[in-house]
C-alpha cells in the first residue's frame, strides 16, 4: 500500500536529483571549457543516467541534422518525447521546456546563472518533495497498520 502511494513520488525525486547532476555537469563544461551547448550535452550524456543520456543524445542528434529547427524547438520536442511518464509532473516538464527557451541567448556568465538558478529551484523542489514523501509514507504506513488492525478485529 505504501509502495503504491509513494512509488511514483520516490521515482520523481530520484529523477530530479539526476537532472540536477546533469545540469551541474553542463554548467562545469561551460564554466571551464567554454563548450557550446551541443558539446556540453554530449559530455554530460556520458556522465549521467541512461534516461537523461538518451534525452541529451537525441537533442544533439536532431540538432546535427541542421534542418532549420531551432535548438529550443528540438529541446521542447524531446522533453515531450522522452519524459511524458506518469511519475514526472506536468509542472516539472513545463519548467524544463521553459529552460530550453533560455538557452543560448546570453553571455557566458548569464548562461551559467540561468542554469544555476534552475538547479537551485530543482533542489528546493526536491527538498519539498522529500518532506511530502516522508509525510505521505508515514501516513500511508499508519493507515496500513490501522487497516490491518481493523481486518484482524473483523476476523476475530
Amino acid at each position, binding site marked *: 500500500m505504501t509502495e503504491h502511494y509513494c512509488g511514483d513520488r520516490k521515482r520523481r525525486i530520484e529523477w530530479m536529483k539526476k537532472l540536477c547532476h546533469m545540469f551541474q555537469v553542463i554548467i562545469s563544461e561551460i564554466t571551464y571549457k567554454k563548450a*557550446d*551547448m551541443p558539446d*556540453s550535452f554530449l559530455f554530460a550524456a556520458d556522465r549521467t543516467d541512461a534516461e537523461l543520456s538518451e534525452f541529451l543524445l537525441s537533442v544533439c542528434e536532431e*540538432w546535427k541534422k541542421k534542418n532549420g529547427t531551432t535548438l*529550443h524547438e528540438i529541446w521542447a520536442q524531446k522533453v515531450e518525447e522522452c519524459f511524458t511518464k506518469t511519475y514526472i509532473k506536468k509542472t516539472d516538464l513545463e519548467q524544463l521546456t521553459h529552460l530550453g527557451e533560455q538557452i*543560448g541567448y*546570453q553571455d557566458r556568465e548569464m548562461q551559467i546563472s540561468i542554469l544555476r538558478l534552475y538547479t537551485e529551484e530543482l533542489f528546493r523542489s526536491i527538498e519539498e518533495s522529500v518532506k511530502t514523501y516522508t509525510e505521505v509514507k508515514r501516513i500511508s504506513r499508519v493507515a496500513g497498520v490501522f487497516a490491518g488492525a481493523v481486518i484482524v478485529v473483523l476476523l476475530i
Partner: protein
Amino acid sequence: MDEFLKLFPGSIRREFERLAFDIKELEEVRIRVGQPVFIHYRGKEWAVCKSGELESYQPDHSYLSFSDSDIKKIIDYLCDFSVYSYEDEIKKGYLTVPGGHRIGLCGGASMEGGQIKTLRYITYLNIRIAHEVKGVADPVMRYLFGSRHVHNTLIISPPGLGKTTLLRDIIRQASDGTHANKGYKVALVDERSEIAGCYHAIPQNDVGIRTDVLDGSLKAEGMLMLLRSMSPQIIAVDEIGGTNDVHALEEMIRSGCSMIATVHADSMEDLLKKEIFHSMMQKHFFTRFILITGKCRMERQYQVYDEELRELYHTPFRLVTDQCS
C-alpha cells in the same frame, strides 16, 4: 546548395531556397540590416528579389531584406545557440562554419581598454563561400622545389585574385607529395582560418596529409610555437606584413625551415617600396616569388621569379568559366 542552406534557421532558409544558382560560382552573400540582400555570383554583384530572382540593383525595385531580429536568429543558429562559446571569434569579427565558409560580422562594438571586447549588436553579415580549387598550383609547383629542399617562396598579389587559394594548393601538394617530389611536413599558421578553414580545429579544406594546423593564432607567435613543437620542414603563413611577422620569418629561415608566405602588393615594384620587404629582398630570404596579376578571379596570370627577380615562368590561367566583370 544544401551546405549553404544549412547556415540558416527555418524561416530564413525558406527565403534562400527560392534562389536558383550554382553554389560553385557563388562568392559572397551580403546581409545588411534593413537593406537589400546582395550576392556576388559569377564575378558580378546581384540584388536578390523577393521572388528569388537575381537582378542588377535598381533603386525603385523591392528586394529581399532582413531585420535585426532575423540577423540575430542567424547568429544564434550559427553559434549552436551558444554565442558565449564563440566570444573569441566574434571579437575578431568572423565565424568559421562547417565547410570552411567564413561569416564576417559587423555591428555595434563594445570597447574595453582601447580594444574591441565584443560586438554587442551584429547587424551586418558577409558570408564568404569557400571554394577549394585543387590543382591551381600545378603550373608552378616544379619551380618551388630544389634538388633537396623547398625554396622559400613569397606569393605576391592584390586582393581578390586567389592568393589564398594558390597558397592552400601549394601547401596541399607539398604535404601530400607529387610524382616529382616527396611529401614534406608542413606547419600552417592560419590566423584568420582562411586557408584550412578550421571548424572546431578540424580543417574543412584539404591542406594535405602531413600538415599540422595552428588555427586562430597570431603569425609571429604561431610560427615560433610550431617550430618548437611540430618539427616542420615547411612553415606556411598568409599575409605577412608587420615587423613581428618579418622577424619571426627571419628566425624560421635561419633555423633551416623553408617558408611559404603571401603578401598584399600590386606588383614587385609596389612590394619593393615597402621598407620591410626591400630589406628582406636584399638579404635574399626568399628564393622564389610568385606574382599573381589579372583582371579578376576568373582570369589571372602567374609569374614565377627567382631570387634575382629573373622570370622563370608565366602563363595566363583560366578557371572553369572565363566570365569577368
